[in-house]
């Protein structure tokens, strides 16, 4: 019962779009986020030819900012700081680490053990495996089990990739079997592989692997990653990633659960317009004189509260996702102010920004990141943070944030479906394309995410149980197929309406937005269209709360 229409979208469906010069819900003239679609990137990823897999780095945005500051700086102290901040791996430390990696290799196991291990409960019956190895075939990361014992498997993967590359002058992208997809991504010195039995498409899996790669870049910078392997092809990267595996673990869980990744958009914490304005003002008034500050970002529970930026520069949603992941995965930020190097791969993969990371106060779980190009700015930023926190407290912003985080029943955005009053709608998610922001009817609550964390290392098994009550995550799982059809490069669909015995799903993409709605099973088309109309009107009405509608700069 599926009907897909490409061009013959019913006339009245076009109505909201062309109604007037009115913008679609959530759209504004200036966006804080760079709305490049991740699917467009995927297309370019796939069209890359063999020799382009060596990653070339573009000019560095960070040095651009540094030199801009220098041009206007009278302060001679700043000039001294011009030296680029990327990690200079000294030759001495490199040789030391190399000798260590040999040790690990000597501990390597027999192939016999290897075969047994592949059948161990740690590895079988998982819905999705992710392996990362170096192009030399050295294991770097495995989502399940112990990558040390997977040297044999990594050898096979490496052989597959290199045989196709050298003998056929081609790139290995997918292997499909009856119930399983294996997706390969070769990025610079790394090979990333996902082996999945989920309903995610190849495109979606490649995107997830790209995220995992970017997570590694965000820890090391692309410059350092390339340099390490140029110097020593056999390098054991786990030395540098020690303690960071859990970042990749958590990222993989997030990508499966959070529609933000599926849509390439950022979720904002719904806040009264005034409260958000006050928070933004607290930041801009405090920070406008700090010249090296590039971004001030406030987030809470994987949602964006506000983002203030240096003129000319925007952030890509995927960089923000990596920041979300970093904050959510690192308990250590809660104990004290931190000062840490952070690389944002889309912003500038070649260098580090320096980040002052701290929670606003003990009674408010909002986290403030101040990102700068100046490595000596800690004291300045630490003072700025305290001023911002004080200003926010006085303006009652902490209460507003806590209300939103605790999903206070009085807020219309807490249970939007109840508030909208269309009982046939079970779930929806909406993405405003121009601002790359998203809103869904049942945002994943914090504790539920925590739960996935805890059981993750053991979990991930394929389970065949009847789901009685669907959660946000299950709905999102259902949308995957639709999302994939809408973004299909060859024959993209504009509108999909599908009824089944379980539900009716409508997905609709226009120039301005993407919308996915799940209705009751027996929903008629006309009825659904009317409901969607009402839904869009509601989103429009609430847009000031659920989206960030301006793009403040320092």
């Amino acid at each position, binding site marked *: 019962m599926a009907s897909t229409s490409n061009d013959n979208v019913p006339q009245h469906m076009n109505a909201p779009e062309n109604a007037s010069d009115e913008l679609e819900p959530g759209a504004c003239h200036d966006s804080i986020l760079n709305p490049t679609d991740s699917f467009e990137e995927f297309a370019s990823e796939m069209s890359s030819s063999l020799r382009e897999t060596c990653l070339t780095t573009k000019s560095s945005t960070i040095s651009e900012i540094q030199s801009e500051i220098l041009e206007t700086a009278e302060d001679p102290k700043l000039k001294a700081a011009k030296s680029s901040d990327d*990690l*200079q*791996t*000294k030759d001495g*430390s490199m040789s030391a*680490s190399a000798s260590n990696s040999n040790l690990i290799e000597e501990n390597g196991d027999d192939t016999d053990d290897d075969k047994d291990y592949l059948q161990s409960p740690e590895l079988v019956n998982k819905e999705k495996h992710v392996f990362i190895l170096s192009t030399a075939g050295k294991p770097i990361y495995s989502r399940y089990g112990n990558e040390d014992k997977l040297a044999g498997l990594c050898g096979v993967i490496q052989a597959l990739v290199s045989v196709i590359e050298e003998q056929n002058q081609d790139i290995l992208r997918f292997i499909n079997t009856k119930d399983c997809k294996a997706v390969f991504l070769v990025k610079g010195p790394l090979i990333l592989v996902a082996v999945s039995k989920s309903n995610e498409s190849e495109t979606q899996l490649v995107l997830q692997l790209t995220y995992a790669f970017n997570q590694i870049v965000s*820890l*090391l910078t692309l410059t350092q990653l390339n340099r390490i392997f140029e110097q020593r092809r056999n390098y054991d990267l786990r*030395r*540098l*990633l*020690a*303690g*960071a595996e859990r970042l990749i673990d958590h990222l993989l869980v997030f990508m499966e659960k959070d529609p933000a990744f599926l849509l390439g958009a950022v979720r904002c914490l719904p806040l009264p317009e005034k409260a958000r304005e006050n928070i933004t003002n607290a930041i801009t008034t405090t920070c406008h004189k700090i010249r090296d500050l590039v971004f001030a970002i406030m987030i809470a529970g994987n949602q964006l509260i506000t983002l203030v930026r240096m003129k000319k520069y925007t952030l890509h949603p995927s960089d923000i996702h990596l920041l979300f992941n*970093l904050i959510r995965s*690192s*308990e*250590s*930020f809660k*104990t*004290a*102010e*931190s*000062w*840490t*190097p952070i690389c944002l791969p889309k912003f500038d993969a070649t260098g580090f920004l320096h*980040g002052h*990371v701290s929670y606003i106060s003990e009674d408010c779980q909002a986290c403030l990141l101040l990102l700068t190009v100046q*490595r000596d700015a*800690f004291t300045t930023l*630490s003072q700025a943070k*305290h001023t911002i926190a*004080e200003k926010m407290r*006085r303006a009652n912003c902490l209460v507003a944030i806590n209300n939103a985080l605790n999903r206070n029943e009085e807020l219309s955005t807490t249970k939007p479906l109840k508030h909208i009053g269309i009982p046939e709608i079970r779930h929806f998610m909406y993405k405003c394309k121009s601002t790359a922001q998203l809103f869904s009817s049942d945002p994943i609550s914090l504790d539920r995410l925590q739960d996935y964390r805890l059981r993750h290392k053991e979990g991930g098994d394929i389970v065949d149980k009847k789901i009685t009550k669907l959660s946000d995550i299950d709905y999102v799982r259902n949308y995957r197929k639709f999302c994939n059809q809408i973004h299909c490069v060859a024959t993209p669909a504009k509108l999909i309406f599908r009824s089944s015995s379980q539900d009716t799903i409508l997905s609709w993409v226009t120039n301005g937005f993407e919308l996915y709605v799940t209705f009751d099973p027996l929903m008629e088309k006309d009825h659904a269209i009317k409901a969607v109309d009402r839904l869009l009107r509601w989103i429009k009405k609430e847009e000031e709360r659920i989206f960030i509608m301006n793009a403040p700069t320092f």
Partner: protein
Amino acid sequence: MKVIEAKIVVLGSQGVGKTSLVVRYIGKMFSKHVSPTIGASFFTCNISVENARVKLQVWDTAGQERFRSMAPMYYRNANAALLVFDITSMQSFTAIKGWVKELQSNVPEAMVLSVVGNKSDLESLRAVPYNEATQYAATIGAAYCETSALHDQGIEKVFKNTAISLLQLSSSNLVSSLRSYDSTEEKIPTASTTNDRATHTAKVELPAWSIDSIAHGEPQKNMCC
């Protein structure tokens, strides 16, 4: 009352208990599940010794390899360093020597060094002999202490000794980055004594009162050699 402000950096390999040590001292608690530090965490604390107050800015650094080359950013201008190793790991003790060399060649000014052997509660698993550590500490002119963040043993002493040495260092006029001044602490008004209702203005001014160097202290000239 003499007040000195000093920066202290905590260095050592991954998992030796740097954060546990600092959190035990400053937060008076211990957690079995400390997540790895990212970059470096910043703490402050005050120690009173011999009629003087030492304000310590503690930089608790990450021990993970990938932050190794970021270290200069954290130990620059430091007046003291805690070099922490795990008495059950010879490797972590060897790493200390690397840190000392790096500090000696990169920090031009005199520093108070303390070598700290943590996890003294795991005596049965000891891999670094007490004598060897003491001897090594002596060769670099550092104090040696063994601590247990788990049982809260010896940590107080490490910080106290460091504070005393910093005080001596500041009176020797050798170090320009060590800030020292007299403060008349008695005169600092405290907000809690008044019965008036707190107003917005009172709140704003509070943080300023605590910065005695600006509000009350008579900053001495920075000492220079």
